[in-house]
């Protein structure tokens, strides 16, 4: 039975570090500029030199995007159980507890109500630092509830995504979050509720095969890795060099999978515009 094994899926689909070796998190992996934390935060975690978009956690994302104090969290108490009794070097339960301690989040998604320029909407925001943003029961459930709340409240849903894929520790039930969230989106469609999907680095695997690609509008930040299978696995399969921008937002845009690539500094105004457009219907 599920024996002692090391589950290092946290970075399964994260891209290879440009420089090769691990750098300080405030050092730009593209141009090596280094920033104080407050400098970086003030610039929305975008490198002032080269425009590289550093990762943004869920709480900071909410701060960046939403009207001040407008976020009202919902379903905050949801926590995963451990259906497989999964145990590698540590038990799944311990891993969740650790992730919660590290991030201050209950799982890889925050869900609730929010406003941008006074316009009301439902929001989900993912955090890659919580177990690689993997989608287990809690992420699936929060997203489904977000759709239901958007329907009840007759407001659009904005989903800011970042995920390495499935929460393997929940086995097949993790896979079931994929159709579960698809069904939730379909209910929302039937109710005529707008859905805007924002892809941030990285949004991969199960998330791309479910709600992240089902938006009325789908936009991404520059440099977002968005692929169903990560570059390493594809490289191992095809045994040839991948294009430089394989799986990145930039190539996905060329191949027709994105409505727009939006700079982080323009994300809020873009979302405001979309909320206005989807707000007043002829």
């Amino acid at each position: 039975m599920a024996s002692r094994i090391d589950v290092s899926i946290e970075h399964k689909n994260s891209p290879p570090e440009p420089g090769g070796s691990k750098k300080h998190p405030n050092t730009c992996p593209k141009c090596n500029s280094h920033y104080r934390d407050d400098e970086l935060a003030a610039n929305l975690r975008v490198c002032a030199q080269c425009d590289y978009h550093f990762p943004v956690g869920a709480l900071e994302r909410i701060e960046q995007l939403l009207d001040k104090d407008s976020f009202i969290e919902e379903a905050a108490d949801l926590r995963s159980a451990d259906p497989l009794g999964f145990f590698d070097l540590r038990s799944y339960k311990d891993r969740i507890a650790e992730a919660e301690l590290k991030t201050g989040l209950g799982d890889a998604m925050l869900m609730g109500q929010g406003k941008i320029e006074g316009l009301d909407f439902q929001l989900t925001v993912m955090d890659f630092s919580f177990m690689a943003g993997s989608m287990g029961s809690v992420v699936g459930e929060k997203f489904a509830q977000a759709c239901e709340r958007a329907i009840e409240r007759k407001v659009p849903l904005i989903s800011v995504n970042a995920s390495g894929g499935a929460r393997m520790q929940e086995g097949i039930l993790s896979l079931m979050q994929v159709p579960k969230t698809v069904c939730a989106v379909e209910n929302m469609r039937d109710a005529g509720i707008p859905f805007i999907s924002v892809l941030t680095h990285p949004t991969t695997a199960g998330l791309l095969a479910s709600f992240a690609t089902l938006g009325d509008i789908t936009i991404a930040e520059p440099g977002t890795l968005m692929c169903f299978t990560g570059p390493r696995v594809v490289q191992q399969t095809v045994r040839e060099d991948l294009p430089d921008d394989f799986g990145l937002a930039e190539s996905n845009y060329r191949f027709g999978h994105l409505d727009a690539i939006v700079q982080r500094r323009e994300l809020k105004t873009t979302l405001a515009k979309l909320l206005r457009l989807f707000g007043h219907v002829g």
Partner: protein
Amino acid sequence: MSGELELKLRDRLAKLKRLHLPGGGMSNEVRRIEQQLEEMGNGDERDEDEIWRSVEFARHPERPYTLDYVERLIGDWIELHGDRARMDDPAIVSGLGSFADRTVAVIGHQKGRGDAVQRVKRNFGMSNPEGYRKAMRVMEIAERHGFPVITFVDTPGAYPGVAAEQHGQGGALAASQATMARLTVPTVACVIGEGGSGGAIALALANRVLMQQFAIYSVISPEGCASILWRDAGQARKAAAAFRPDAVHCLELGVIDGIIPEPKDGAHTDFDEAAKLLGKSLRSALDELKKMNGKELRRDRRARFRSYGVFAS
């Protein structure tokens, strides 16, 4: 070992648990069956060998594939090809035919049997996005004309290729599910071999999900899992034991509605018998769905998938 009695008990148990969901009742019979299973030495735990046998049978090179069942179960078969945009993906087959006195649409992953050429031609049952787009197209024909949709799931996963990614593999998998979620016709999915992750679920968002006795269904392949867990795909057997992709485990979790028995030593030992058993289960699943109208079918399907998740209380 999974005898026929055990499968029956497990089916019954799963049904009771499903019925159980809304309110109380029935718990006595649930407990009784669980006890009986335990007495048979078939409690919750299945050993590594049993699970690995499912993995081996599910991937057996002589296992019957979608078209083997079509040949034996579907009358007036006409295969429908192409996504109307870029290609006809041979890793997914689709078509119309008659089954149980009605016209049905059949869509399934298709592996090649025999030499390498055949296997490569079918890309080992790993579809490109175009295959899923063909599937959606045929689902829409079924929807327009009220044909039930039967899907056969048998793929290691969606193809992890460069062009597959460029042409939107993730989006196609999502869109295929979305299409299935919208249908107002009865849909039954059967996992007949490997039910590998996103590539599988893209054809499995159905009203009823059945699984052959020695099929597997999982979020990742045993090798994929092992190479992540130990960076060693050779540890697949151990990984499978951790994930339990076998039918009994899936039934226990409520992920499938029933297990379709196979010939004693696996479907590959007797295609005709395997088809007969599959046909019987398919027919009764479709009969069961006859009671629902289009709206109910859609609601039933979405409610089914809405329910998955386990939470700490």
